């Protein structure tokens, strides 16, 4: 019923002509149906109503590059004025950049970057370096400077995850030489596979001190594995997990801490950045964004609009957050 209504609305929109063309800002996540991107969508909607633009949220069902590409192309064709994409891979937007320019559509990245594609801005949750280093630093705070830490990642092809892993490895090499960071294992998008891999890692390395879940989809699996193995407190679990997903595990001790940022704010910032691009306003080194307590930094050299520093969630503060 809702779909028919949507169709009728689209129809009437068409007939009303493009004279009332509200400016449209879109966000294309890596995959729909996960709470993380859901939160970004909520932030984007809030920004849209604050800034007076229309927000479009459309994403692929699977982390399939073709599907994401098709969605982006469709949005360009629909003359959406600005499109922010959480790219699955750096080469995701390469084929459509020319088309976007020709149609006067601003294509930019958010949440996951394609650094060499010539995009005008990357709305970053935190620097990839900051994220990788924070999660390692916090882990070392809890397990000490010697020991083994395992990594359970999601899709092997996700460039943002791989970038964080790279920085984690660099951090360990430069600052914690007595920590062994095991090679990352990939669980795809499924919690049960993540649990299986986490359990196997713990079996293979009984002296394992920490497990890091890279993707929000692997968080429940890793935590569950630690709980089932009865290693709460012996193996410190962590990951880039949202407070809602991690709450139960932070309280039970399976997770020592998690690192994230506020995806709702990230979504808000994405739409705000889109509006800036549409209005042709350049980003200054420090930008005042409505609803943000601190000014948002912009690095003109790398084109990165930074949301802020990564946030660390623990048993103590997790209840303050609702996402």
């Amino acid at each position, binding site marked *: 019923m809702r779909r028919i209504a949507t169709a009728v609305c689209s129809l009437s929109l068409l007939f009303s002509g493009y004279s009332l063309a509200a400016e449209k800002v879109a966000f294309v996540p890596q995959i729909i*149906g996960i709470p993380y991107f859901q939160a970004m969508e909520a932030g984007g909607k809030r920004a849209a109503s604050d800034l007076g633009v229309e927000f479009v949220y459309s994403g692929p*069902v699977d982390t399939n590059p073709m599907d994401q590409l098709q969605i982006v192309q469709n949005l360009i064709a629909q003359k959406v004025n600005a499109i922010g994409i959480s790219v699955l891979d750096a080469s995701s937007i390469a084929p459509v950049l020319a088309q976007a320019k020709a149609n006067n559509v601003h294509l930019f990245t958010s949440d996951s970057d394609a650094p060499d594609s010539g995009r005008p801005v990357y709305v970053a949750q935190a620097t990839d370096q900051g994220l990788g280093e924070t999660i390692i630093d916090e882990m070392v705070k809890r397990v000490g400077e010697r020991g083994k830490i395992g990594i359970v990642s999601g899709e092997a092809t996700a460039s943002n995850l791989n970038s964080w892993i790279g920085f984690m490895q660099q951090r360990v090499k430069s600052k914690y030489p007595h920590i062994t960071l095991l090679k990352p*294992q*990939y669980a*795809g*998008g*499924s919690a049960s596979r993540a649990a299986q891999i986490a359990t196997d890692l713990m079996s293979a390395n009984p002296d394992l001190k920490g497990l890091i879940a890279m993707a929000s989809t692997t968080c*429940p699996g890793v935590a569950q594995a630690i709980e*089932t193995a009865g290693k709460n407190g012996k193996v410190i679990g962590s990951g880039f997990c949202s407070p809602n997903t991690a709450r139960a595990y932070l309280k039970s001790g399976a997770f020592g801490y998690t690192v994230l940022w506020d995806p709702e704010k990230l979504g808000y910032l994405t739409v705000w950045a889109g509006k800036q691009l549409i209005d042709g306003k350049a980003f200054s080194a420090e930008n005042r964004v409505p609803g943000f307590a601190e000014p948002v930094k912009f690095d003109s050299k790398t084109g990165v609009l930074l949301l802020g520093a990564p946030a660390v969630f623990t048993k103590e503060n997790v209840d303050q957050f609702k996402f």
Partner: protein
Amino acid sequence: MHMTSREIALLAIALLAIAGFSWFSPWFATVDNLLTILRNSSELLLIALGMTLVIAMGGVDVSVGVVMGVAAWGVGQLLLTNSPWLAALAGPLLGLLLGLMTALVVVIGRIPAIVGTLGLFGVWRTGLFALLGGQWLSGLPGTLTGGLMHSLLGVPVMAWIIGLVWASVWLVLRHTPYGLWLLAAGNSEEKARLAGIPVTQVRIATFMISGLLCGIAATCYIATYRNVEMTVGGSLALEAIAAVVLGGTRITGGSCSLLGTLLGVLLLRILQNGLLLVGIPSLWQTVVTGAVLLIVLSSEAASSRVFTFRRLA
């Protein structure tokens, strides 16, 4: 007990794998690890059991994983209303219902099983998304977990349930007319009908049983992971088919090997676990699965061509 050559081969490979992995990794042959392997096999054991029946009947079902997902949603929702018994029962009931719908499409609609279940895979996946409202069902209460993980005589309740289910199916196959009818229908539908076997009812029943097993697997899944996401159960169907075929049940139907399926499931999980323990990156696991499947099948086919007269006997 009489074992077919395939079952013996699987057992040999499994033992070889265990020996090999134990040699290269001191952590493999520990009680903890072996228990882990068994625990990781829970859902696949149930789903592959259902798949064995479906394949023995001459069909195939690629939607089993998503059926488990939808059933898991039902279990999760009821768990949120604080009624663990109802939630536990919801799984099998929902599975039964979904199995019935599969049967309607494939048997009554007379669409070839692989195509019909392919279509249903898409429909259920969309259905699960709609039910989840685009979110996850996460952080479910552990009431079910407590119940199913509780140890009875040193073995968790879940393991007892799986064991009981396997025993019941085995008994049904051996000692009821349904078992005979299943194999006859799988062998040749026409001849079975001529012999007076109610083939249509048998096929509907088989899909419903497979659905029921998926539903039980859903309850186990919730108890273990307390989370339902849209991608639940995605690759389970293919893994189940691989396990069943490895086990010796012929894809053309008419034969059935429960022991083979059991060995197939365990072998798959042993390989996945062992490879990780000896340090081979997880990305190579599918390569090994595929290679093992192809090697087992082709070596048997190649050798049976030499001993054709033995096969006829």
